[in-house]
């Protein structure tokens, strides 16, 4: 069933099948829906066979980077000499993205089953699920689910009698977007400030507590039980043409559409179908102006680019942006693009951990320049200044937070330059007081 809207006929409902169904939140309800069969099956397979199955499915990371999941798991040492850890990234904070929250609060056992299978595959006895501090309802639901899973023997010292110890620990964040970056998350679990770490070493070599660690997004792990149950070939078959992007993807759509919400589509679905058929198009009397397709950290698309794009990893890149987390922010013709780009820059300035100069200074300076433009005090030179700054913020820091700030600024100037010009020329009323 869909949530908060009924499933649309063009959706392919796998992960979201039980969203909105309170029964699916309980252990008994989940088992009734076929839950935990995949974990039992996986525990009867070799670790290598589980990794091979996930590799063959073509599953790629659903948090934003799109890295092949099975390949990531295969980087973990085969021999477990030191402890191994699995970390589940449930720090969903990317503006426009709200899919993991639905998995956490409606199908907690789907996630726990995925965590348990992944832990087994990578040789980890403990999995930390890092849940952002603001997700109070998901925290309560997950806490109850872990207790039930332990009480029923799915998790614990001897998971389903396999002799394998699989423990899940919930760790609550405390308000920091940057902790969604995997190395910042490891620091945060270790009781440190959430500063990203320089890579290498990569987490599979020296991650959490300095030992081999795999970090996967909630949606990635939630897909794993389905792959184990129904096979890699079935998953690979969920694909509308491009074999590099397989399976289903949850799309969070927000902003100026008639039916915002989460939709689950087969990779390769035309973006037009999502925007118009599933979401009902723009509000009455409006037309779309822009779409940010993958969370706020990716380049802005024009309406034309979005309408022509194929929704998969490569298809969105072909139209000048990225699939990212598939959090789509849709803006209609009433939107002041300069103001919204400023608001995004302010977000990144607020969330910068401040350890790299380019990011700490660049995000704040970008914000101030945009404020000057919105106050009617902008200059023609500001275009070049913003672009130069963005250049210095891209590919030069420990993590990609400052790159993410530059993406909407650069694409915004390229595609909506006339709106900046209007403020600078005085053709548009200032919306901010001069600083």
């Amino acid at each position: 069933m869909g949530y908060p809207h009924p499933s649309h006929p063009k959706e392919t409902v796998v992960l979201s099948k039980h969203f909105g169904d309170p029964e699916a939140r309980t252990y008994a309800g989940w088992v009734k829906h076929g839950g935990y069969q995949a974990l039992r099956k996986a525990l009867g397979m070799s670790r290598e066979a589980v990794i091979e199955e996930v590799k063959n499915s073509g599953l790629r990371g659903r948090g934003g980077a799109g890295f092949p999941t099975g390949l990531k798991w295969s980087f973990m040492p085969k021999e477990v000499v030191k402890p191994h850890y699995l970390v589940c990234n449930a720090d969903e904070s990317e503006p426009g993205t709200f899919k993991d929250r639905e998995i956490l609060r409606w199908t907690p056992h789907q996630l726990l089953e995925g965590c348990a299978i992944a832990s087994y595959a990578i040789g980890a006895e403990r999995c930390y699920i890092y849940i952002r501090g603001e997700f109070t309802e998901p925290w309560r639901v997950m806490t109850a689910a872990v207790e039930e899973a332990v009480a029923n023997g799915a998790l614990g010292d001897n998971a389903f009698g396999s002799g394998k110890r699989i423990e899940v620990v919930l760790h609550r964040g405390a308000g920091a977007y940057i902790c969604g970056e995997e190395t910042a998350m490891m620091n945060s679990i270790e009781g440190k400030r959430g500063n990203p770490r320089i890579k290498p070493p990569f987490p599979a070599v020296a991650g959490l507590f300095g030992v081999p660690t795999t970090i996967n997004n909630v949606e990635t792990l939630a897909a794993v039980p389905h792959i184990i149950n129904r096979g890699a070939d079935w998953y690979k078959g969920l694909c509308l043409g491009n074999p590099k992007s397989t399976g289903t993807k949850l799309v969070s759509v927000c902003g100026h559409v008639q039916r915002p919400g989460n939709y689950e589509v087969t990779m390769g679905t035309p973006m037009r179908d999502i925007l118009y058929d599933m979401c009902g198009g723009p509000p009455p009397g409006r037309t779309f102006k822009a779409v940010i397709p993958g969370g706020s950290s990716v380049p802005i698309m024009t309406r034309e680019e979005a309408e022509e794009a194929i929704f998969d990893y490569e298809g969105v890149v072909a139209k000048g942006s990225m699939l990212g987390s598939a959090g789509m922010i849709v803006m209609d013709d009433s939107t002041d693009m300069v103001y919204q780009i400023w608001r995004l820059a302010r977000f990144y300035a607020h969330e910068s951990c401040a350890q790299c100069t380019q990011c700490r200074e660049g995000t704040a300076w970008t914000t101030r320049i945009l404020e000057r433009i919105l106050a009617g005090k902008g200059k023609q030179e500001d275009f070049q200044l913003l672009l130069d700054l963005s250049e210095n913020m891209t590919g030069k820091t420990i993590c990609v937070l400052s790159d993410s700030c530059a993406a909407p600024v650069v694409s915004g100037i390229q595609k909506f330059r006339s709106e900046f010009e209007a403020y600078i020329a005085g053709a548009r009323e200032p919306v901010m007081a001069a600083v």
Partner: protein
Amino acid sequence: MSTHGGHGAGTETAPYEPVFVGPARARLEQLFLKYPTRQSCLLPALWMVQEARGWISEPAIGEVADVLGLTPAYVKGVVTFYTMYHTHPVGRHFIQVCTTSPCNICGAEDVVKALLRETGCGELGATSPDGRFTVIEVECLGACGFATPILVDDDFLENVTPEKVPGILQRYV
């Protein structure tokens, strides 16, 4: 017990009462079993302090440092990194409103105005004269399809509009 405790939690007349005694101490000891280092329990311990006291005072920072074997300066560095920890007292009900772009284009700034007006807080971060509310703007709450989401204490409310604000506030005395 603590070299950092006993300085008073804001007033001279109220000596600092430690948080990690009795059941709270037992809860913390249980947490130690879930991590290979005590330092890892810092975020959970700070949450426990905030649940018990409403905010994290200097003496509380000292107590947390003591029980985890860290220095107060280190703990303070972590406390100030994370925006959800309060380093000063706040109203009885703490309201967080998302105003990041997805909610912004759906009218979040009007929700903020309505909250500031109806609570009597007047400005962001200030506590209402009756001590009932504090309102702050926050970055993305991760519920963009339900604009505008707000958090009142631990209650996550969706689809809030300026019109709904008075009715919501009535539920929090």
